């Protein structure tokens, strides 16, 4: 029987995984995947709470909007990464160190 707590556990794991990816990986594409993991964990949470606790549509609405906006954000992010790659010919985050103060 899948209950609310299973969903919460999965989404929490996804969240931690996303944060870990952001901290550990040096590849910019991998870091953007980490952002997607975090956003999806939030979307899963909204859907699960809506289904098991609150029985209203607001949570589902939030999940849908999160998916749409995550796509928009990924599109803009990838465009910037491509531009960065064209200039520097690398997608390693340590090479983006020109603006250190």
């Amino acid at each position: 029987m899948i209950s609310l707590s299973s969903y919460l556990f999965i989404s929490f794991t996804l969240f931690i995984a996303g944060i870990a990816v952001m901290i550990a990986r040096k590849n910019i594409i991998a870091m953007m995947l980490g952002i997607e993991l975090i956003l999806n964990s939030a979307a899963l949470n909204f859907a699960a709470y809506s289904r098991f606790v609150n029985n209203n549509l607001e949570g589902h609405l939030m999940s849908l909007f999160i998916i749409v906006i995550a796509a928009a954000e990924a599109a803009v992010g990838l465009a910037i990464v491509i531009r960065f790659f064209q200039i520097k010919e690398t997608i390693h985050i340590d090479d983006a160190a020109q603006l250190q103060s």
Partner: protein
Amino acid sequence: MGQNYLASLSHYVPELLACLTMFGLILIEATYKEEEKGRGFFFLSAYLGLGSVMTFSFFSLSKPAVTIFTNSLVIDPFSSIMKVIMVLGTLLAVYITSQSKDIEGNLKPEFVIMATGVLVGGMLLSSANNMLVLFIGIETLSILSYVLASLRKGDDRSSEAGLKYSLYGGISSGIMLFGMSHIFGVLGTINFTEMAAALKGVETAQLAILMPSFLLFLVGLGYKIACVPFHMWAPDVYEGSPLPVTAFFSIVPKVAGLAALIRISHNFFAVEGALNIGWVGVLSIIGALTMTVGNVSAIGQRSVKRMLAYSSISHAGMMLMGVLVISELGTRSVIFYSLTYLFMTMAAFMVVSFVNDKYGNDHFERFNGLIFRYPLMSIALAVVMFSLAGIPPFSGFVAKFHIFTALLTKKYYVLAIIAGLNSVVALYYYLKIVRLMVLKDAESKDTIGGFNILNQSVVVALTVPVVLLGVFWEKLLLMADGAKIFIQ
């Protein structure tokens, strides 16, 4: 239901006009040929569109508060005045762009279009009344800001700034959503009014989930305001972006984030209790750190643009002081502060922009002896710097004074002392530039092309409110009272 939505539209004219301006500008830009240099008609339409947005927001100041679109947005005098400030900031940033050489000619229209988009997001954020609209507002603001930061396509610093902005922005909005989802789970609704009602009956076990969730929620907003634990992106982005973009970032997203933060604080944390104590405690630590870190980092800078960018972080910390008192007085002081800060920072960035265009950089030495060559501009810059530092006859002092009053009414003495010490530190680097302008000899006798009569008069026109608001602030506050600036 349908009629309800149509009736809501009549309160929503400023936002609709801003969207329309954006689409119109895209179409107008499409009609220009590749080799055409002048963009006179384009900028004229931009000024007209933004001007009409400002007029409509200004006229909705006197209207009573209403909630529209099934309670998802609230249009009250507070959100309207925040919109007026944001539109004014956008207008001035567009003017700086039209004069600046820091952005190439064919990219200027793109800046104007994106800036209008950011403005739409900011307007949404300042009148958001549920978490969905708040999230959409923040994302509209952020996604277009990433593009703005990396506007200079061929430049490696600009694209690096955009990259860092988008990575930090993505992770902070993800963390904010994770917090929101647990708040939704506990309170059962995404509407702020219903959430505030549900908050009154929470049990201790629920509080244990709610308090960390609200902390995560704060990350997203704190990132937009660039307050301290979430400010890592700010210096890099401010340095890498073109100068008009930096000027734009230092006012519009900050005001939008502050407006949302004020609304959230008043909705959820105005009642005494564990939540209130926790929220005010967190905000005071963040605010004190923001002021101090911004000021200390600004001291050692060589570039005036970087100095102004760091000082904008510390001013955001100062405005947070007005937010955390959670009273009508605090809100009014934040409104006054952001209005005066708008004029001060835009005048300063404008002068710096023209010096930067002439010499290719804006180091402090470039301002040596400016008073002998351009006395009017130097006096304007000096007035603005005195005002930013908070020296009496000018409006910066009155703004700071209001913040202190708000702090002292709630007996937050330690915060008031920290804020006072920070003002003293800020005095050093603001007066450094005045000292260089007046006491040093000029390096060269070249004329600075940017200082033509039109630009000089615009800078002077921006300096006039800085002086007038400092002297006649009582009258302005009376007007504000007449317009009933309060939060529902």
